């Protein structure tokens, strides 16, 4: 679905000034990155699902969020050991190829995030 907002030339300056005022608030509220987590889980290879379950976001600042895989007390149900192999799966090793699920998620979501911020700032989305 495409939402278009028609703006007359006479009110264009008001609309653009609103963007300037809203953009920081909108960007801050868009950084929860729920969709990024979903994308990363979709791209994540699954054996027991422990690595996929460990994917999460942590807010580091108003305009900064960390997308994290592994650690955080997550335990692999098969080995009973902590999920500490996220980097090996993501970047690959000498024996397994890289499966960059976080990078793929970031790549696939970054433009959408920027567009969402601009659409929200422009009043095209609620």
């Amino acid at each position: 679905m495409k939402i278009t907002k028609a703006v007359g030339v006479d009110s264009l300056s008001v609309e653009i000034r609103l963007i300037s005022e809203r953009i920081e608030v909108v960007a801050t509220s868009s950084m929860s990155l729920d969709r990024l987590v979903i994308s990363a889980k979709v791209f994540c290879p699954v054996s027991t699902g422990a690595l996929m379950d460990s994917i999460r976001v942590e807010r580091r600042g108003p305009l900064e969020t960390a997308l994290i895989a592994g650690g955080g007390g997550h335990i692999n149900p098969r080995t009973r050991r902590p999920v500490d192999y996220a980097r090996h799966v993501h970047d690959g090793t000498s024996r397994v190829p890289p499966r960059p699920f976080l990078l793929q998620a970031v790549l696939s979501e970054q433009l959408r995030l920027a567009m969402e911020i601009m659409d929200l700032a422009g009043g095209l989305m609620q």
Partner: protein
Amino acid sequence: MMETSLTYTVSVTGLDQVKAQADSAARSADLASNSISALQGQGVRTMPLVMNALQTVTSLHHSVENVTKALQTMNPEAMVYALLSMVSVVTNLMQVMRLLRESTATAAAAQAILDTLTGGWWLIPLAITAGALIASSVRSMQTGGPIQETGIYLLHRGEYVVPTSSVSNYGPFYVSFPESSLRLDMNRFLRELGPRLARQVRRAA
């Protein structure tokens, strides 16, 4: 101690530049609005030309959206078409601009409108976000050399990656072509590439 988790930091940067651009665009929009009001008051005959410029700018905006979509879906064919469309719209825009500049009555209004709408300020967060997110995560091999650590690298067109097995057995080898090859038919060039590589491998072995 080895890290137990893998972290990608996602941040939005460049909002100050966006604000500055938006404020500048808003000032231009004020000028545009005032100039159009003045033109309407005078009943100037070149008014349709200004409206044509506005339509062309809208087409440009659509073209930008199409390129963005093509980038999002990583569809090279759609990207080429979208870029070609953008080139054609920009060419059209330049012609309209030239016509507008010839008419002093509409020049101020046209300039203000085009400054507002073609500033490309809506592209700024896209470019900044795209650049910032990737730069911090992917290592580059721009200067070449051995890869010390397993991971994801940013490779560019024309660069070669040599498998470890080939390095230890034969050493790295490179296939070079005379500059005139670039002017040859691309299909022929690609057909000849396989046999050339095979010859290089045989010689290296």
